[in-house]
C-alpha cells in the first residue's frame, strides 16, 4: 500500500482542524509552537497549514534548515578549497547558490572550479576512487539525519583505503539549540514540533530534558498534513492540560530509542564540539567534529588553506528569522532585493529555508 495519499486525506485534515478550533475556543492567551526542521517548514507552507489553524495558534519556524544555519565562514572555507589545484568539491545541491562573503560555489564553478552536486556522500567516495590524482572534498552539512551518512562514507573510504577523500564538516545537532530557544523570554515557545527524520536517529528520548527541565511540550511529528495537524493537536492538548511531556505522533517511523546502529556509526567517526549557528552564535556541544582516528579524512585539518575574512550581508535578517523572532515578510530585502533567483541570505536559497518557503507558497 502507498501510505502517502492517506496521510494527505483532506477529510481528516479538516476534521483535525475543526477539533483544534474546538479545543482552543475560549482561550484568550496565544499558543506558539515552533518547528525546527526544514521539511516541516516547507510542508506547513505547502499545505497551507497555518490557514487551517485558529489565529491565536501560531506556528513559527526555528533553525531547522542545515544550510541556513551554516555561517558564512564555512562557505568561505569551501570556496577557498575549491580554488586549490587538483580539488573536486562534492556537495548536496542546496549549498551551490548560498552566498558566502564574496562569492558562491555556483559562481566559482562558472569560473572553472570543479564542483559536483551529489545525492549521497557515497557518490563522493566513488568520485575519489575514480580520480586518484584529485582530492575530493565533500561538504558535510546537516543534522543528525545526515551526519551518520557522512560517518558511513568516511568508514567506506577508510575501508577502501582511499587517501584522497575528505570531509569539510559543519554538522550540527538540534536538541541543545532547542533548549537555548526554549529559554529565550522573547520567544515564549509553548511547544516544539520535533523533527521527524532527525528523531528516527536520535529517538524521542533525546527531547525528554526539554519537557522535564524546560517544561515545554514536545511532539515528534511526521511531514504529511495529517501528521502535522495531529502533532499540533497533541501539543495543544498538553498546553491546555498544563502538561509537558514528549509524545510521538510519527510512531510509524520514530521510536523512543531511535536508531542505535546509526548512532554507533556516528560516534565512531564524530564527537560533540562547540558550533557556530548563523543568528544564534556559538552553542557549546551543538556540533560534531571528526575524531582523531579519522583526522586524515578531515579537510579542515588535512588541507591547509587561507580563508578570506568573513563578512555578513547588510540588511539580511536571516539570523533573526532562524530564531523565529521575525517573519520573512518583516525583512526589508524579502521579495525585492532578496529572491530565490538572486538570494542575499541563506534562508532564501535552500529548498528548506523559511524565506524560500514563504516566497514560494505565500506567508
Amino acid at each position, binding site marked *: 500500500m502507498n501510505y502517502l495519499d492517506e496521510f494527505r486525506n483532506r477529510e481528516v485534515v479538516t476534521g483535525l482542524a475543526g477539533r483544534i478550533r474546538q479545543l482552543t475556543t475560549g482561550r484568550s492567551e496565544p499558543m506558539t509552537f515552533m518547528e525546527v526542521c526544514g521539511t516541516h517548514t516547507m510542508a506547513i507552507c505547502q499545505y497551507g497549514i497555518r490557514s487551517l489553524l485558529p489565529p491565536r495558534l501560531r506556528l513559527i519556524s526555528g533553525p531547522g534548515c542545515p544550510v541556513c544555519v551554516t555561517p558564512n565562514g564555512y562557505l568561505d572555507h569551501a570556496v577557498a578549497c575549491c580554488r586549490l589545484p587538483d580539488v573536486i568539491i562534492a556537495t548536496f545541491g542546496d549549498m551551490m547558490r548560498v552566498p558566502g562573503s564574496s562569492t558562491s560555489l555556483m559562481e566559482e564553478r562558472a569560473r572553472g572550479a570543479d564542483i559536483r552536486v551529489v545525492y549521497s556522500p557515497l557518490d563522493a567516495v566513488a568520485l575519489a576512487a575514480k580520480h586518484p590524482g584529485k582530492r575530493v572534498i565533500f561538504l558535510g552539512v546537516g543534522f543528525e539525519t545526515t551526519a*551518520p551518512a557522512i560517518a*558511513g562514507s568516511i568508514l567506506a573510504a577508510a575501508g577502501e583505503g582511499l587517501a584522497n577523500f575528505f570531509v569539510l564538516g559543519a554538522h550540527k545537532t538540534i536538541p541543545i539549540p532547542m533548549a537555548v530557544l526554549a529559554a529565550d523570554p522573547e520567544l515564549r515557545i509553548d511547544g516544539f514540533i520535533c523533527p521527524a527524520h532527525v528523531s528516527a536517529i536520535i529517538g524521542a528520548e533525546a527531547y525528554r530534558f526539554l519537557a522535564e527541565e524546560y517544561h515545554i511540550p514536545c511532539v515528534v511529528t511526521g511531514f504529511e498534513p495529517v501528521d502535522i495537524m495531529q502533532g499540533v493537536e497533541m501539543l495543544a492538548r498538553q498546553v491546555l492540560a498544563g502538561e509537558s511531556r514528549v509524545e510521538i505522533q510519527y510512531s510509524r*517511523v520514530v521510536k523512543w530509542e531511535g536508531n542505535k546502529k546509526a548512532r554507533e556509526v556516528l560516534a565512531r567517526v564524530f564527537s560533540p564540539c562547540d558550533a557556530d549557528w548563523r543568528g544564534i552564535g556559538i552553542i557549546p556541544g551543538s556540533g560534531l567534529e571528526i575524531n582523531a582516528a579519522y583526522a586524515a579524512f578531515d579537510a579542515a585539518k588535512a588541507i591547509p588553506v587561507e580563508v578570506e575574512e568573513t563578512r555578513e550581508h547588510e540588511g539580511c535578517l536571516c539570523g533573526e528569522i532562524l530564531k523565529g523572532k521575525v517573519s520573512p515578510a518583516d525583512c526589508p530585502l524579502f521579495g525585492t532585493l532578496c529572491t530565490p533567483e538572486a538570494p542575499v541570505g541563506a534562508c532564501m536559497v535552500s529548498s528548506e529555508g523559511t524565506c524560500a518557503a514563504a516566497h514560494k507558497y505565500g506567508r
Partner: protein
Amino acid sequence: MQIISKDGNTAVAEIDGVRREASLMLLGEEVNVGDFVIIHAGFAISKLDEDDARETLALMREAFTPEDMA
C-alpha cells in the same frame, strides 16, 4: 520508499517509479524486499512500521470519515 531488491548491504528502493540505491549499513534491523524504508542521502535510516501506520490511519478514518462516504 519500498525495497524492490537487495544485495548484501545495499538495496534498491522505489517510489512513484523513481529508483534509488541505498546502503543498509546504518540499519540495525533486518529489511527485506517489500518493506518500506526512509532513505536519506543514500542510506536507509529507518524501517516503516506498517502495523503502526495502519492503526493510525484506521483511527483517523473512524474519527473523521462521514459514514455515507466510508
